[in-house]
């Protein structure tokens, strides 16, 4: 006999899209070159600080050893079949593919003290939380590898009579998913509704109508125009030409000048690619909206899967039973061919001990630009594409609060965004928790540094102290949640100097990416960088392809 009054009225207009994971495979050298952060151990003394916490990563000190050249002398040498450099999603996917084919002689080297790259996570007594990427949209039919992995991990539990996948409902992002703080209150969904004029709404319709058409569009080659993984997209010029202009230009060319629409599209570009829409190729920008084609028997097509630790959950599952193959705190400083073997030299930054592994093949699953330093041939004769790979810096903070941040207009959601703000808002780590009563939570606060040129922004990030970051974050949060500062128990900051490759115009379908994709002898490149967009699915795709190529080398070398 339980009656209770009505709750907060909800806005029926719900935007169909969610925050995109920003995802690069981590990798040894990922953070290596990550031009910022301080060493994991270098956390500050607890004294005279207003809030507990520290800058917990990434390991910039180790990463920057790469810039100092190859001056290390390995003291011991071992041999293996394949070395995988980097243990983000690309590296882990390569390793998983090798293991599934019964290959045991491979080693994975990771610069950080944990696996996962951009999908890394941390454990906290309130809730585990992500350090970067935190969800994957439902895979479409082309994303064969993702579906396979999801079946293996129990994310897809079966298929219904229509052949649609049935997802584990604990992993589908729980409702309410998204809210936006605009004009002093929260609305449901991220497309601005409060204050939007009929003209704004007309432009929303035009824009989302175009994206819908492009989602279904096929090129003369019969392929869909925008596909995840992007390699399988149509090569029809009609679509590739979007790579030549920016997303901002695309909107302008189509007469879309609504302030709210442009804010929303820019927000999506910053969220997915760490760049403002003036810097994002329209092909990449459209891909965000038109690339997702997943469906499910028990969820809406735009649903996503997520966990408290974000994609760290997948990392944890993929790294299970892999411990004998993984070496963390291993900074790869030199790779060179010696006879029919490839030498991979790495340093443990904690002990200063350098080691060499002789391998028959190498899967380079670290951010692509680091290869210009670590691979001897590239170091000595820089390729033409050397300057083409640009990277966006990010700051991700996990804020432990002792009260759930509510607010007027719409209830606390998984993703909580502030209109017109430099930060992207926050994701609630224990949103997926089914318990009725939650007194504490962890907010993962995302902040791409897009105020200026990436190099300058990287510099700005590195010069900011923990206190300065904590101040900025707390000040920002308390603008939307007055009084929240009193409930903040801890702030942990993770700085990604080179968080994700920047899909600037002409990069995705340009020459540099194609050239960088080509293997260097026995070295195969696998990283979402190779797609030009930093997505889980892209990293996995390149990881598996590289594993198959590397395996072919191994099999060729083996006497018949």
């Amino acid at each position, binding site marked *: 006999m339980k*009656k*209770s009054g009505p709750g907060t009225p909800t806005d029926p207009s719900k935007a169909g899209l969610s925050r995109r994971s920003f995802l690069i495979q981590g990798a040894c050298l990922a953070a290596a070159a990550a031009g910022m952060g301080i060493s994991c151990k270098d956390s500050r003394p607890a004294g005279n600080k207003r809030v507990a916490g520290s800058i917990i990563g990434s390991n910039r000190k180790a990463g920057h050893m790469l810039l100092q050249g190859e001056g290390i002398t390995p003291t011991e040498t071992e041999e293996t079949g394949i070395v995988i450099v980097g243990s983000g999603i690309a590296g882990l996917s390569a390793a998983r593919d090798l293991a599934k084919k019964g290959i045991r002689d491979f080693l994975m080297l990771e610069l950080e003290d944990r696996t996962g790259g951009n999908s890394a996570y941390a454990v906290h007594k309130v809730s585990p939380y992500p350090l970067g990427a935190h969800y994957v949209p439902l895979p479409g039919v082309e994303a064969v590898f993702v579906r396979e992995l999801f079946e293996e991990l129990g994310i897809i539990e079966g298929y219904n009579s229509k052949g649609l996948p049935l997802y584990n409902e604990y992993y589908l992002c*729980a409702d309410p998913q998204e809210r936006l703080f605009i004009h002093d209150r929260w609305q449901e969904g991220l497309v601005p509704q409060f204050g939007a004029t009929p003209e704004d709404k007309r432009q929303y319709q035009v824009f989302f109508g175009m994206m819908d058409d492009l989602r279904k569009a096929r090129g003369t080659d019969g392929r869909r125009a925008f596909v995840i993984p992007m390699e399988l997209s149509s090569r029809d010029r009609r679509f590739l030409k979007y790579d030549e202009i920016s997303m901002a230009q695309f909107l302008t060319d189509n007469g879309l000048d609504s302030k709210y629409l442009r804010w929303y599209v820019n927000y999506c570009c910053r969220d997915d690619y760490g760049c403002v829409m003036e810097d994002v190729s329209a092909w990449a920008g459209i891909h965000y909206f038109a690339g997702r084609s997943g469906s499910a028997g*028990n969820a809406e097509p735009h649903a996503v899967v997520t966990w408290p630790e974000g994609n760290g959950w997948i990392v944890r599952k993929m790294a299970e039973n892999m411990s004998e193959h993984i070496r963390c705190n291993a900074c790869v400083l030199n790779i060179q061919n010696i006879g029919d073997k490839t030498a991979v030299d790495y340093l443990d930054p904690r002990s200063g001990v350098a080691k060499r592994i002789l391998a028959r093949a190498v899967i380079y699953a670290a951010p692509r630009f680091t290869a210009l330093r670590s691979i001897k041939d590239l170091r000595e004769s820089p390729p033409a594409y050397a300057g083409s790979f640009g990277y966006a810096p990010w700051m991700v903070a996990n804020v432990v609060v002792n009260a759930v941040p509510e607010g007027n207009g719409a209830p606390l959601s998984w993703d909580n965004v502030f209109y017109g703000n430099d930060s992207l808002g926050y994701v609630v780590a224990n949103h997926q928790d*089914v318990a*009725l009563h939650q007194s504490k939570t962890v907010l993962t606060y995302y902040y791409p540094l897009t105020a200026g040129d990436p190099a300058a922004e990287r510099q700005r990030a590195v010069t900011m102290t923990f206190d300065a970051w904590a101040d900025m974050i707390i000040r920002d949060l308390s603008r939307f949640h007055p009084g929240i500062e009193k409930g903040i128990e801890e702030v942990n900051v993770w700085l990604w100097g080179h968080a994700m490759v920047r899909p600037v115009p002409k990069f995705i379908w340009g020459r540099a990416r194609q050239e960088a994709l080509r293997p260097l002898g026995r070295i195969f490149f696998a990283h979402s960088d190779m797609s030009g967009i930093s997505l889980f699915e892209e990293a996995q795709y390149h990881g598996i392809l590289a594993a198959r190529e590397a395996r072919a080398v191994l099999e060729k070398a083996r006497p018949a």
Partner: protein
Amino acid sequence: MAYALLLSVFVISTCGLIYELTAGALASYLLGDSVTQFSIIIGVYLSAMGLGSYLSRYIVRNVITVFIQVELLIGLVGGSAAAVLFMLFEVAVHFRSILYSLIGITGTLVGLEIPLIMRVLKNRFEFRDLVSKVFTFDYIGALFASLLFPLVLVPYLGLIRASFLFGIINALVALWALHLFRREVLYARLHAAAGGLVLVFLTAGMVYSGWILHFAETLGYKGNIIYAKTSPYQRIVLTRDGDSLQLFLNGNLQFNSRDEYRYHEALIHPGLQSLREPKDVLVLGGGDGLAVREVLKYASVSSVTLVDLDAEVTKLFRSHETLVGLNGGALKSPKVHIINADAFIWLKGETGKYDFIVIDFPDPSTYSVGKLYTTTFYRLVQRVLKDDGVIVIQSTSPYVARRSFWCVVATLQSLGLKTTPYHTYLPSFGEWGYVIAKKTPFKMPETFKPDLRFVTPAVAQTMTEFPADMGPVETEVNRLHNQVLVRYFEEEWSRYTH
């Protein structure tokens, strides 16, 4: 001395405006429609000040003494106005008349202040100078108050405490004036004593303002509060109205002892009576033990597991004499195992199997409670159900929240369960609905325990008949990631209550 009085002009004009703002804010808060409330309050207050100014002409002698008396009265009336209005709101029939009378009295007294003080000062300044000085301080005080009120007082003190604080300040002005003019004031000692009393009263009000606020809120209950406690999860309030008891959780009525047997008999007996030899029963929610009381009427039941989040509730219904009388000591029965845990989490780890499972949760009015009505949750329930077992779920009102009710049915059906929706009329709640779910079809029992007060075979037959206005409607299936039920529920109940 002249400047001291000018300073007091500043202080009293600040106080005066604070009373006006407090009344305006309070009226908007309690009555809604802030534009109307503020306009009327300002109008009444200012016209009352006019009346006060007019009345000042009748004060011919002992001007300073009257001034001190006025100050003390303003402190007393203005200072306690917010608390009085809060307390009277729930009980007074003519709240608006009381509100405007209090505003009128305060305004009249404040209207007396300036004319009186000008008369005290008339011989110390030239007239031109006097008017200029007094009004300057008066208006500056107004500005100060209007900034202080929204920026400091409301956020940091709250209306009740702010109003007491300014009452105290008014009284202090009176005492200060008394000190300055101690030679001219009649009965100076008596006035000092009165001032002291006013100060003590206002200070006590300020210190106990939390209690006042709480007292004011509890006046919202019809019956007398006989128990109130805030647990980590909710506010538990038990009231007595005549010879009946009511339990409120967070202000929502859970049961009225007058007709709760109807609800609990209808919840338990159709399902439990249909089982041949029920042994193991699981009750989720229902920490009041009233459902358990009905379950224990079956001799074959050897074990009842009660899972309720709030230990304060189960403790109360195990120890409070009247409540133990109401649930027949059900929670003290050796057959009953009480587990204070989150049902969702607990079910995930449960391995036992049950013949009869009772789900008696609050209505799905929030997303967190909504989780307990999803496919994911029901799948966990299904896992601990014996093959021929029965589940019964309280499913809100099919009359008020028709789509919500049928959404629960659709959600259970989506898992392959056979459902039997039924409903009954409860005087305290209106039309109320339940759903029975099992793996095989359910048939309503043809006999019931003879000692039931409400459910009989004939009544039970009518329960499964749905009139056209509560009949089945198509709905979506409620899942963790869509929570359609909470959306239906919000929409339907808000339409009903507005």
